[in-house]
């Protein structure tokens, strides 16, 4: 069958299935516990106890099937070794110690740490800056839309765009990469293969994620800035604060919690970063990150044990930030 048709059928089945599930399950509940008759009051109370679970059930099922089970299975695989011809043998922490002995793993750890420091900070700071600067100007919304747009591009798509930006053509021919075009024009020297300079190439990759995440930070922080009572700003102006003091001493402290939520949300994204590195350098030239390392081990080297161990490391790093983030977001909502 035509893949487009197949896709359409899947979508329609899914949507209709969802609507049907919620409609029918609630219908059945109402039929079993009718809101009339001698036990109407008791039935309503009982139905109200059950109804939330009807709505939660599909999500809970999907989460346990696709999230909880893989976590346990990954943990199990990380403690086993595959033997040739099928079957597993207990390996204990061998996979972990093998991984800890590999320089590529430590390179990935170092790069992840670097990403962790630079990307959330840069994306949040730029997002905050844009949110503040576009707040009062007529074309601010157009600027915001443009900056938000990269959010709509997939990581791989963004990587392709930026790979073209960093592209290098042989000396003498026209440079189609913007960076090299500028560099050749301004310095008069030959083109550079930017993505092959160890250490600095990490930053060239980070630019892609910053480019994407700034829009996210901007939207959230812009809403937060709008929520600041205007009088506190006016009071600060009357108190003699200049625009910088108003921004840093009155506005930023008032949206501190939102800034932290944005920061940590981006942090989680950064820890999981895979597509950008995979599509642009595939971890070569010392740009390896944990997620790509995991992929390499799992699907290229076919070493399920070490690959799973790497996955567990990523999960262990993400979990505390995620827990803190969810808690913070819930406090914010209260």
């Amino acid at each position, binding site marked *: 069958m035509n893949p487009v048709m197949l896709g359409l059928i899947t979508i329609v089945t899914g949507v209709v299935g969802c609507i049907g599930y919620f409609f029918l399950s609630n219908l059945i509940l109402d039929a079993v516990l009718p809101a009339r008759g001698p036990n109407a009051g008791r039935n309503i109370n009982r139905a109200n106890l059950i109804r939330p679970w009807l709505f939660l059930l599909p999500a809970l099922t999907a989460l346990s099937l696709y999230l909880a089970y893989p976590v346990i299975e990954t943990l199990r695989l990380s403690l086993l070794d595959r033997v040739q011809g099928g079957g597993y043998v207990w390996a204990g922490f061998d996979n972990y110690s093998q991984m800890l002995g590999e320089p590529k793993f430590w390179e990935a750890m170092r790069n992840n740490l670097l990403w962790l420091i630079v990307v959330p900070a840069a994306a949040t700071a730029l997002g905050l800056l844009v949110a503040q600067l576009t707040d009062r100007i007529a074309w601010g919304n157009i600027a915001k839309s443009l900056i938000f747009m990269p959010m709509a591009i997939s990581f791989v798509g963004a990587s392709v765009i930026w790979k073209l930006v960093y592209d290098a053509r042989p000396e003498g021919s026209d440079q189609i990469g913007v960076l090299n075009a500028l560099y050749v024009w301004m310095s008069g020297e030959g083109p550079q293969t930017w993505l092959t300079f160890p250490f600095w190439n990490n930053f060239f990759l980070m630019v892609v994620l910053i480019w994407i995440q700034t829009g996210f930070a901007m939207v959230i922080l812009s809403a937060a800035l709008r929520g600041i*009572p205007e*009088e*506190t700003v*006016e*009071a*600060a*102006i*009357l*108190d*003699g*604060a200049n625009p910088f*003091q108003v921004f840093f*001493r*009155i506005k930023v*402290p*008032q949206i*501190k919690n939102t800034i932290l939520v944005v920061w940590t949300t981006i942090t989680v994204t950064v820890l999981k970063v895979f597509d950008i590195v995979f599509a642009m350098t595939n971890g070569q030239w010392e740009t390896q990150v944990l997620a790509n390392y995991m992929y390499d081990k799992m699907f290229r080297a076919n070493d399920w044990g070490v690959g799973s161990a790497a996955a567990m490391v990523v999960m262990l790093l993400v979990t505390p930030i995620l827990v803190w983030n969810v808690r913070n977001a819930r406090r914010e909502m209260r």
Partner: protein
Amino acid sequence: MAELKLTNVAKTYAGSVDVLRDINLDIAQGELIVFVGPSGCGKSTLLRMIAGLEKITGGTLEIEGDVMNDVPPAQRGIAMVFQSYALYPHLTVRENMAFALKIAKKPKPEIDAAIERAAKILQLDDYLDRLPKALSGGQRQRVAIGRSIVRDPKVYLFDEPLSNLDAALRVATRIEIARLKESMPDSTMIYVTHDQVEAMTLASRIVVLANKGIAQVGTPLELYETPENEFVAQFIGSPAMNLLPGEITATGETTTIALEAGGSAVSTIPTQPSQQGLRVNVGVRPEDLVQTDGPPLFEGTVDFTEALGEVTLLYVDRPDGGDQLIAKLPGIHKDLRGVAVKLAADPAKLHLFANGQSLRPKVG
């Protein structure tokens, strides 16, 4: 010399919408001026123009003789208390009050002394290290006032400071503000409110704003006793002054008016012979009306009564079908509903308005 002087001040939005025009006002040092007026009359806008939060689009604003039109708010020597308190939520009470002084890079001992002084005046000593969210509404308002006091401004601006408080707290805080003013006799204050009780009790002078301009400026009792126009007459006092249309039938030292509702009124306001036959409105406050057996100013049937205990409000139908007349009689008179009453008033308490303006000769 006037502490604060407004000359032909005007406010126009986007070049077309007139909000205020031709505001002329001299405010002396130590006065507490209250701006009152109906919603949307521009009283808050005028205050914000004085503060520097709104641009003055016409005329000049002088403070102590210096033109302030283009001086940044912080350098005008003013401090403002906002309706919503506008406390910095992330700073403690102490830090809230210290903010302006820290921005001005004042030495720490000076800041501490200023905060201590303000805290003592406002009884905030025990709350200095709390955040605003841990304070009650009244306490927050006191912090907002404290934030002004520490700056030791020439002029205090209050923008409806009591509107966010509940009724009981409003009365208490009103008295506190009156005490505060008494303890700082040299400070000039401008106070915006829509509550005429606040205006009457606090003001040394009231500025009534209406129709984009000043309707009248005067002490509270001047406005009550000698309103210059129908707007002020009806705005000050509650319930509002009754206006009875009529025609002047005799002029001289006293004036006689034949009322459309029947009956006639005699006023002690003198008129010229040329004013014979002039159509006027006779204004009489509900509290100046009394029941009488003699020749009445007004006769009608009581349509409705509201007994408030100390007084009773009578809503009396007018024979000519105009607005009901309201009388405020001391004591309880619920039995008057449906009864025909005869009401009279002291001729000296009557007001005469022609074309909306008072016929009373201006004093001074």
